[in-house]
């Protein structure tokens, strides 16, 4: 290690400039965090509205779902989409993985809301690419360093969606829709089969994916109760 001994200013050995430039770097980071937080807080606030609308699925009869829950929910999601776009523009100026923990939770909530709405509407699982199209942001970027939706975000959101559907299964029965639990059961099992393919490490995704099997069981129990009592509709209304 050869370094020319530079003549220092006030102290020859400990250059104060080292520390003033460090402080500058820390302060810059604080400024970036503040900027991003503004967007995330807006997104979070809108997210609470979306969630409160979506929670009405548990006490809304299936035939009223479209008009009284899904339509207003898509409107709320449209507002969130605008905020995501703003966040994306702001965040893309900075290294994605340095900051993504700030918005991860709220972005996952948006994805989950989209997945849930779409499944309730037509029984399809929104793909990662479709999530990206809806939010108008890229997905799964691997070389370009910009804002995007990650595979982990998508999968974590999916575990929340599954949980919400498992809650819906008994509630749908309460509302008189005996076909819903069967649809949910098929979907949850299919997703569970998917999660079983993943080689998970000991992280958040593993814990959440492990939770999926409890959802499978919960929905199974409902279906079992119904079939035991001959309450399952004769023509399975799947998809």
């Amino acid at each position: 290690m050869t370094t020319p001994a530079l003549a220092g200013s006030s102290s020859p050995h400990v250059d104060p400039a080292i520390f003033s430039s460090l402080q500058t770097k820390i302060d810059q980071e604080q400024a970036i965090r503040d900027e991003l937080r503004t967007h995330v807080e807006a997104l979070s606030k809108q997210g609470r509205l979306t969630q409160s609308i979506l929670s009405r699925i548990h006490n809304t009869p299936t035939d009223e779902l479209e008009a009284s829950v899904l339509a207003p929910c898509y409107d709320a999601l449209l507002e969130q989409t605008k905020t995501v776009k703003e966040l994306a523009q702001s965040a893309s100026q900075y290294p994605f993985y340095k900051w993504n923990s700030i918005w991860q939770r709220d972005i996952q909530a948006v994805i989950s809301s989209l997945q849930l709405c779409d499944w309730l509407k037509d029984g399809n699982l929104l793909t990662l690419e479709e999530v990206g199209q809806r939010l108008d942001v890229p997905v799964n970027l691997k070389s370009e360093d910009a804002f995007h939706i990650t595979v982990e975000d998508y999968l974590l959101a999916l575990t929340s969606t599954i949980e919400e559907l498992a809650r819906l299964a008994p509630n749908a029965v309460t509302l008189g829709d005996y076909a819903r639990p069967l649809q949910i059961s098929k979907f949850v099992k299919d997703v569970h089969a998917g999660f079983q393919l993943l080689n998970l490490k000991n992280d958040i995704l593993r814990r959440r994916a492990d939770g999926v099997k409890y959802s499978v069981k919960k929905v199974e129990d409902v279906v079992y109760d119904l079939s035991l009592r001959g309450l399952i509709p004769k023509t399975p209304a799947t998809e």
Partner: protein
Amino acid sequence: MAGTKRSHDGMKIDRPSASSEQTSPFIPVFEFFRSELDEHHDRRERIIKVSRDVTAQSKKIIFALQRARELGRPIHASISKQITPMHSTIRDLLQSIVPDLQGINACRYYGNITGGIQEFMEAVLFQHYLATQRVMSFDEAAAQLPEGLVLTYEDYVLGLFDMTGELMRFAITYMATNGQLPGSETGSSSTILTDMQLLRSELERLDASGSYSLSRDFSQKLRTTRTSIEKVENGVYSMIVRGKERPKGWRPDVSLTDAPREADQVDSY
């Protein structure tokens, strides 16, 4: 887009089977997710391994440097003969993960490499201080990493904190063997102690709250640094007061530090 399909440990993929009444339509898309996650975990593990190895090598360098008996002169040949291969090992290790830490991945895996980089910084900063009696600047330190690896100021600062512990150990040993403070024989007004005190006050002045990763460790590290500097202060005090009558095998008394528990923590970093 899905990668090559591998049959991996014990998990047979029975796609066209009739074991369950129907196969999930999501299997292909999850196969894609699996290959993405596998790639991520493989890379992560490679980086963690390198980080551990770099940490181990850096600790060895620091150990060897503690045998130095001079301050402000080039590292003695016997020591530098020992540490040169370690430096090149570290270089090779870091070089091997440069491709894994490019672009968007630099920050993605930062948490997995930071431990190794911090320890390496400690070694580099310590070695530089021993050889020149100067604290290496951030830019100089950044140049010690292979091209393609970016030094974060967090790793630099945390390495700097840890280095003060090494300076303490060096100063105490030096006083025990030479009966004077390193740096004082040149007649210059600044000794290792004044340098440490200056470092302490500069570090104390930093407001780390703006950096998430820094503020997490900052107060703990600062406490340890304070303890280290007080140890040297007490050592110098006892050397001056009782220095004249010191018997053979005398060591500066550092027991004046109030909290022995904190003193132990110096070693644990």
